[in-house]
């Protein structure tokens, strides 16, 4: 029974996103409401919307929905919920309550799968300190699950995705490669130890301690469907400043075993799309073989946080991150001044 979940789906997880260029095109045609209380909305592809209620209170609001990327329904529920909650954390907020959004094929009557998915989600909402307060379901051929989440944030402490500063260090808090691994799961060639690693990271909440959030973090986002280069390029290009980044490939954490799966052909359509769109922004200063390069474009589901932080506080941040269980957190590069078309230098 469990085996079925991945067979019921086409693209997995965040690899099922709509092409970012197409998205940009049609979103630009939708009327956007300007309001001084809306601190984050459409304009720079923020992780979540933020609405200022008063000087000290802001609401963070987000919705995310994904297709299965593992076969175990309880684990899938956990991953989807962790992924949805992440957008609240990526704004510097805390989840208050969540609603389920679920699509499931009614004909198949496999409600035990659905029950497990929802149980996984509920457990993660509780772990995140939020309340699951209801939801909405749809009869659909392909299963999908996620949450709409409302959180709280101090409007003065919102951390945006496009406000890095020259000289900042860049930290990535989880290893890359979960997109390739979920393709390998679907292809039924993934080994248990590799899957366990991917599941461990995809179910780890991106919740940072207050102590970490009080550090001088200039910009913050989570790495999801557009891959590391995609999300980093948003951080730089949408800043409206002449900013670039130098990233050190060998310092980027990658789940062990991922390169073998690339060589076996387990690259998702999403990774190839991301590479096509974003590779013109990245300049390769080292010889990168395909299996290494593609990891930089691999769509991550419930991926890690990309933190742009004052270099004075980077050591403390890494120490705290490791204490908080982000044991593969690494400094992967720094923010530089750049006008070049190739804003990201891979060294």
């Amino acid at each position, binding site marked *: 029974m469990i085996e079925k979940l991945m067979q019921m789906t086409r*693209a997995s997880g965040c690899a099922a996103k709509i092409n970012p260029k197409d998205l940009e095109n049609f979103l630009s045609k939708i009327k956007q409401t300007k309001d001084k209380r809306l601190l984050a909305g459409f304009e720079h592809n923020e992780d979540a919307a933020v609405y200022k209620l008063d000087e000290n209170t802001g609401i963070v609001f987000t919705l995310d929905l994904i297709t299965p990327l593992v076969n175990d329904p309880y684990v899938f529920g956990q991953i989807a919920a962790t992924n949805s909650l992440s957008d609240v954390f990526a704004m510097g907020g805390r989840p208050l309550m969540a609603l389920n959004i679920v699509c499931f094929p009614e004909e198949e009557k496999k409600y035990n799968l659905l029950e497990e998915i929802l149980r996984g989600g509920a457990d993660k909402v509780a772990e995140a300190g939020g309340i699951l307060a209801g939801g909405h379901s749809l009869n659909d051929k392909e299963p999908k699950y996620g949450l709409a989440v409302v959180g709280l944030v101090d409007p003065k402490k919102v951390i945006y995705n496009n406000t890095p500063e020259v000289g900042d260090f860049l930290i990535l808090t989880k290893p890359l490669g979960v997109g390739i691994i979920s393709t390998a799961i679907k292809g039924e060639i993934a080994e248990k130890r590799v899957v366990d690693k991917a599941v461990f990271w995809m179910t780890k909440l991106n919740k940072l301690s207050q102590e970490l959030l009080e550090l001088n973090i200039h910009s913050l986002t989570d790495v999801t469907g557009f891959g590391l280069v995609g999300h980093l390029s948003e951080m730089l290009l949408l800043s409206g400043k002449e900013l670039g980044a130098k990233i050190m490939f060998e310092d980027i954490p990658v789940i062990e075993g991922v390169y073998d799966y690339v060589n076996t*052909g387990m*690259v998702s359509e999403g990774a190839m799309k991301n590479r096509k769109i974003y590779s013109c922004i990245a300049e390769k200063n080292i010889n990168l073989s395909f299996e290494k390069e593609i990891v930089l474009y691999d769509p991550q589901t419930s991926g890690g946080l990309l933190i742009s932080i004052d270099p004075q506080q980077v050591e403390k941040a890494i120490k705290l991150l490791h204490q908080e269980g982000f044991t593969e957190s690494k400094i992967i590069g720094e923010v530089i001044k750049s006008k070049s078309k190739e804003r990201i230098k891979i060294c």
Partner: protein
Amino acid sequence: MNQSIDVRGLSCPLPVVAVRNKLLEMKKGILEVLVDTGTSKDNITRMATNTDWKVEIKEEGEEYLLIISR
């Protein structure tokens, strides 16, 4: 006689899995593969060359014919 397999219409990674299974069974010879996405073409080519098969690619409109041999 050449063997052939049509993986058009299958979603990733099913095309590469189907071709991989076929090649494992054949061990040597020629396999013609009909593919309809660039990603599947690249994935199959990478998997095959990494397992010591030779790949020749013919572009036919929106589709590709891969001739895989060993």
